[in-house]
């Protein structure tokens, strides 16, 4: 981000209006430093999601049947819609940066608003999916219930039942598969990965929306310094990265269903 000048350390105000703040020789170097800082952060984020994905890959190799079953419980169309929403938001973000470079403030504001709206739309669709999963019982923890298995009939309060792992009773669509030892636990493992990956991603989307909102406000009140497009560019890198993560999450969680 463009750093604010600190009166104690900045050089005497130069005649040229666009001077770098801090230890930089010129604005280009300042911009480059900002970009590299964001890229270094994005590399750490790639490894954060990469670690989860590597673990997912290992468990999928070991329990393909249960993980394929998990993918089949995901809504393909909602996932595809969400992917399209994020791809469009990346497009509007790229156009927003161009508007910032051209000095077109109103166009910048509109495109940032469009990006924010699409990001919020992503979260809305995700909430619909989450609500459906919760209703079906596809949640991590003691409340997990295999949706293809009939619900057990409770005859009375059974405190221990909440802590006992539930094995799918007979009668589901593919009985032999449901009775395979550990299948329900492995399906639950898929569900844990699903919530961890999409939850972590959704958290990043929320933070990204906050970031974009802050930049939009600062740009509106002309508080972004002499090169406002640098701020927009750096925030754009973060937003595109969030899109790239989802581009990979979608096939991994939704499409590996055969």
């Amino acid at each position, binding site marked *: 981000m463009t750093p604010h000048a600190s009166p104690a350390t900045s050089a005497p105000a130069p005649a040229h209006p666009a001077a770098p703040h801090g230890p930089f020789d010129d*604005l280009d170097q300042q911009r*480059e430093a900002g970009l590299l800082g964001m890229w270094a952060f994005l590399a750490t984020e790639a490894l954060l999601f*990469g670690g989860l994905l*590597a673990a997912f890959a290992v468990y999928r190799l070991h329990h393909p049947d249960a993980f394929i079953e998990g993918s089949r419980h995901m809504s393909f169309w909602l996932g595809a819609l969400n992917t399209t929403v994020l791809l469009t938001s990346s497009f509007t973000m790229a156009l927003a940066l161009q508007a910032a470079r051209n000095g077109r403030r109103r166009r910048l504001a509109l495109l940032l608003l469009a990006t924010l709206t699409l990001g919020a739309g992503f979260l809305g669709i995700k909430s619909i999916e989450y609500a459906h999963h919760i209703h079906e019982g596809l949640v991590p923890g003691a409340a997990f219930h295999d949706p293809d298995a009939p619900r057990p009939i409770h005859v009375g309060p059974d405190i221990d039942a909440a802590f006992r792992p539930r094995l799918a009773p007979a009668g589901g669509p593919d009985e032999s598969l449901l009775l395979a030892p550990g299948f329900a636990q492995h399906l639950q493992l898929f569900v844990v990965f699903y919530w961890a990956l999409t939850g972590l991603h959704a958290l990043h989307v929320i933070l990204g929306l906050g970031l974009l909102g802050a930049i939009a406000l600062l740009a509106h009140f002309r508080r972004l310094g002499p090169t406002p497009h640098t701020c927009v560019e750096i925030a754009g890198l973060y937003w595109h990265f969030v899109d*790239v993560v989802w*581009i990979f999450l*979608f096939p991994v969680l939704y499409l590996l269903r055969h």
Partner: protein
Amino acid sequence: MTPHNSPHADATRTYALVFAALLALMAATVAAAAFDLGALGAPVALGIAAVKAALVVLVFMHVRESSRVVWLFAAAGLAWLAILMSLTLTDYLSRGWFPDGR
């Protein structure tokens, strides 16, 4: 303004073309998912995703027109991620290759 900006009308056209390509790749993803491709299913889905990601990184994130230092940082992130995935998988994919426990 930084001096090395390309003509701005061209940039809009480039972004629109890339967005159209991304939508086409989404259509390909949906089409591919309709068929049971067996062992090819995962490589096809992930391959299409990789192309989408490459387009976003190179064009929308401007890596393609950035300095070599930016290329280095972006490539380094990708390289370490590739090491994480590939070395982990070489372990687990080769389990059971040698029955005497080697």
